[in-house]
């Protein structure tokens, strides 16, 4: 009995070692052919008959998945080396070390086709600037507002929930209610572009929605999808449940999203145009 338990433990350890090896190959730039896939597949096939618990089978599944990723890497490796573009990294490294900065710069300039783009002020933009200027309070009035704020005593920085309660912008109950209402709205709308969700007709309300949305994301009630090429951020509801069940285990990441009066103004104008077009 003890022997069998010992053998099972060894098999699990083999699998964990294999998974770790596969992950090392994927993260480091080692040769993916260092791992004998055929040999490990034979081992997995042999072990499969002996697994009893669901945990063992899950581990087996993970090992197969990691092996598949290594095969994918091997495929890419062969593809890279079979193209004429393949260059020996060691040779390139040596060449680069021997070259003078001027030579390197010259090579870059000969291969560089920069994007042409211009910044220019238009009368429309000047008009927007003037509108902003007219709506802006004088500096001393804005400063006075800051001095009177309890935030200034705390030395400024970020505005937390407690600060908002102290400022009497929210009460705790009201805050929770508004958070739930916003969550219900997101669930009804489904996956939505972030700014389309946050921006509404009033700029102040838009800021409030952005603030509440940040709570929805931090608490795991909503997720963010960032599309760098599209330059868009999508917001989507996450199913109810414990936060750990809702969100995959990943490194915590903070995503700064700028909300500005100008951006909001542009959004409102665009929406008005779309509505008048209809």
């Amino acid at each position: 009995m003890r022997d069998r338990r010992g053998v099972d433990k060894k098999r699990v350890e083999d699998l964990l070692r294999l998974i770790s090896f596969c992950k090392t190959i994927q993260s480091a730039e080692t040769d993916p052919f260092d791992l004998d896939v055929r040999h490990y597949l034979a081992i997995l096939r042999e072990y499969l008959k002996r697994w009893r618990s669901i945990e063992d089978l899950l581990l087996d599944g993970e090992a197969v998945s990691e092996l598949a990723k290594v095969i994918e890497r091997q495929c890419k490796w062969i593809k890279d080396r079979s193209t004429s573009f393949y260059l020996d990294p060691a040779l390139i490294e040596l060449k680069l070390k021997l070259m003078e900065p001027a030579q390197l710069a010259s090579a870059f300039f000969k291969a560089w086709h920069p994007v042409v783009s211009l910044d220019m002020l238009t009368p429309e933009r000047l008009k927007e600037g003037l509108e902003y200027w007219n709506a802006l309070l004088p500096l001393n009035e804005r400063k006075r507002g800051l001095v009177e704020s309890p935030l200034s005593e705390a030395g400024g920085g970020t505005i937390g929930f407690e600060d908002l309660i102290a400022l009497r912008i929210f009460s705790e109950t009201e805050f929770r209610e508004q958070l739930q209402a916003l969550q219900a709205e997101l669930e009804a709308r489904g996956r939505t572009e972030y700014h389309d969700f946050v921006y509404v007709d009033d700029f102040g309300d838009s800021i409030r929605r952005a603030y509440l949305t940040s709570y929805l994301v931090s608490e795991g009630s909503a997720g963010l999808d960032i599309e760098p090429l599209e330059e868009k951020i999508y917001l989507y509801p996450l199913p109810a449940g414990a936060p750990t069940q809702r969100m995959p285990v990943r490194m915590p990441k903070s995503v700064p999203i700028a909300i500005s009066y100008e951006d909001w103004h542009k959004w409102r104008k665009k929406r008005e145009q779309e509505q008048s077009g209809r």
Partner: protein
Amino acid sequence: MAQEERARAERKVKKAAQLLLFRRHHKPGVKGWELKKALGEDYMEIIEILNSILLKLGLEVRMISESEVEVVAGASGGDKHKSKDRDNDRFMVVFKEHLIDKASGLRIDDVAILSATLAYLIAKQGKATRKSVEDFLADKFPRRRVISMLERYILQGYLKEDEEEKTLCIGWRTRVEVDRKTLMDLILAA
């Protein structure tokens, strides 16, 4: 009637030039759907006309998608473009010919760092750990300077960083602006 058509097409070409040349977002260029909205369904034809005009000035329109970068073809390539959905591609104008080095305001050291980083990454199949890149560059430049330049090139889109994997790879801007084969040929020939 033909004159009206011609005038309409000319107006659209001018509008396309404005859209492509003047920066409207953080990233230069415009998306296909924005062009479609501003120029109509036949926007690819308008872009082809604009491209033929730009070519005479040594410029050309390039399209970048998630996976590839393409040059706008002339009239003969029209069918190819029509058959593919371009709405999510980004359209940009680039210099077709390479620049004379004095045309850039960049410091020679800064360009050398970018050039060496790109060559290093290309030789490693487009991806390497950030630490290995920093160590490699620190051989010739102070580490603090290397780190600040890498940050700048990440911001500008020449490099892309995966913070979780702690790796650097080729960014969208390198894909659009740098002829990687020419760069590597020149480095090998040096």
